[in-house]
């Protein structure tokens, strides 16, 4: 718990709250100012919009602790505000609300438009309100209401406030807090329970939600590559982020894969079953794993096919990678970014494989190398050069 002191609706308040408490939860739960509504809680719907140092901000993705010393105005603090009074009358007149859930945030954003954009036409008003979702009105009444207030004020020659009255630089709400007194004290986090025999006995078939196809080439004969693919420990050592948790058998492997996409990190622990067909130089690996920290699970499938190149002197490795995510991590709705990560990891895998098969030491390639794939410009250039060899293909999402 941290003591947080700030001004809310011109009143100095001080309450203790956890650092993870959003400004919205702070005003709702500590101050009973429940006019600030929470919709999406990730900055998209705009229902939680309040004035922070006099201008609009999302109170769901702004933490109260970061607003120490700031000046907060919620919808309750706008009762006497001249512009908001005009907007309220216009919203009533134009039927600009039905259920009213979006209205507090809508009024805060509309007030800002009225102050800043005295010449706004319908299009600019619509763009200006695009960060406030309304599921009832179809926006027609809202836009008319805002437009009527803007026109009325223009007719009265009221000067705009182009910058919303702001003069200092930096995030609104910041800059008036004192710094932490001491060195950081880490609050020990409750560790996720140890995986209870993480490796599942049965690995079911599944239909992947996302499939990506990748291809790379190796300067080794297909038979040699196929034999290499049977050396599970060596393959695992070449796979970025993969470590084995039990001695592998030819048809089953248990282990962990660590993946990181920007600030998102996961360690999936589980097992995979392996099938190979020497006649067609192809194989299939189906796995299942869970990440304890994020309470997420994944099922994955890798199909590979080796195609002889240059009269059998070289091999094209054609990969089809499918996966399905469930749990917290499945909320990350950006398959394109995951595809880019997969491309980088496979480039890394191919490089490690090539070094291993050419007899170069690949020990240092394990795990750390993925995380430092982005470590400096030189590596980036290499990656780009390397990238030209690959043709990535995204499948269905």
């Amino acid at each position: 718990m941290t003591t947080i002191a700030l001004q809310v609706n011109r009143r100095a308040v001080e309450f203790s709250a956890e650092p993870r408490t959003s400004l919205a939860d702070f005003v709702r739960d500590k101050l009973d100012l429940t006019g600030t509504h929470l919709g999406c809680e990730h900055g998209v719907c705009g229902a939680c919009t309040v004035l922070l140092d006099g201008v609009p901000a999302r109170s769901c993705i702004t933490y109260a602790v970061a607003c120490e010393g700031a000046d907060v105005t919620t919808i309750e603090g706008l009762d006497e505000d001249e512009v908001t009074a005009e907007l309220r009358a216009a919203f009533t007149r134009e039927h600009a609300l039905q259920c009213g859930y979006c209205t507090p945030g809508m009024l805060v954003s509309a007030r800002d438009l009225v102050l800043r954009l005295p010449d706004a036409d319908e299009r600019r008003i619509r763009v200006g309100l695009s960060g406030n979702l309304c599921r009832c009105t179809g926006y027609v009444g809202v836009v008319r209401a805002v437009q009527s207030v803007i026109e009325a004020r223009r007719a009265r020659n009221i000067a705009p406030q182009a910058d919303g009255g702001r003069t200092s630089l930096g995030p609104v709400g910041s800059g008036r807090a004192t710094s932490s007194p001491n060195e950081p004290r880490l609050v020990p986090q409750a560790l996720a329970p140890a995986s209870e025999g993480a490796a599942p006995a049965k690995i079911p078939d599944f239909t992947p939600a996302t499939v990506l196809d990748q291809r790379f080439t190796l300067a080794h004969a297909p038979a040699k590559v196929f034999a290499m693919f049977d050396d599970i420990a060596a393959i695992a050592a070449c796979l970025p982020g993969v470590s084995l948790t039990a001695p592998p058998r030819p048809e089953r492997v248990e282990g962990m894969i660590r993946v990181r996409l920007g600030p998102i990190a996961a360690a999936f622990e589980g097992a995979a079953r392996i099938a190979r067909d020497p006649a067609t130089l192809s194989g299939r690996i189906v796995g299942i794993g869970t990440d304890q920290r994020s309470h997420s699970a994944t099922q994955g499938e890798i199909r590979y096919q080796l195609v002889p190149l240059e009269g059998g002197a070289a091999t094209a490795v054609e990969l089809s990678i499918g996966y399905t995510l469930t749990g917290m991590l499945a909320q990350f709705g950006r398959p394109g970014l995951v595809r880019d990560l997969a491309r980088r990891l496979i480039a890394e895998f191919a490089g490690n494989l090539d070094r291993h098969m050419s007899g170069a030491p690949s020990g240092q390639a394990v795990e750390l190398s993925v995380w430092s794939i982005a470590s400096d410009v030189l590596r980036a250039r290499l990656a780009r050069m390397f990238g030209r060899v690959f043709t990535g293909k995204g499948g269905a999402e």
Partner: protein
Amino acid sequence: MKPAPFSYERPRDLDAALSMLAANSASAKIIAGGQSLGPMLNLRLVQPELIVDISGLAELKRAEVVGNELVLGALVTHADIEDGRTADVTRGAMRGVAANIAYRAVRNRGTIGGSLSHADPAADWISALAALGARVTLRSLAGARTLAVDAFVLGALESALHPGEIVEAIHVPARAASAHWGYAKSCRKTGEFAHAIGAVLINPAAASARVVIGAIDTTPIVVTDAAELFGGRIAADYKQRFDVRVADALLVGAGIDDAAQRHIHVSVLKRAVLEAAA
């Protein structure tokens, strides 16, 4: 939809912030405006043990013209640029980009340094600043280094930042009086993530151009020797000479296999070229 618990520290200055980061690099995250990290924390996609809040650091809130370039501290917000609270050496280019980032409530807290650090391919600054030829200064306890913005972004959400290092400042070169600027993006809904970005800085008088095709789910395509995109030379008639086939080939080379996606990127780039020529 509430973040996992985290510890929170507000360092007194940049050095203190860097020390905290260095001491906890595996488990700490820097937060500035929090407009990208906040949603990820709330969705529990990210669960750091320590949040180091740099939003109050005055030394990162400067904006000054030094010689022929504008130096922006990492904490300058999109709204600061949109409203003209910072000097503009790009003759309106940066103001126009800033004004169309997400929504006003987000622009009031979202920072230029945070946006770069997050390295989301769909974000505006990584493409716009690459086209403007900007550089970024990174600082750690070991010192500072400066990179071109196009060398800073290495992939989706992947930047050149080392552990313990943060974006300190952005250096934007003055836009030449004869240089034309065009910026276009395609979003399914206003303010949402872009699905295509085109940014062009074309100087017909100097026969030079920087062309960026962004929001391609990875590092933007940055073309510094862009004559080929304009039929071999960059001159006053570049608008007529813009060659969509060359742009398409660039996208194929970057691994964009879907013809419809390429069409969107090429169309958006063409809009940027037409805007520059207008």
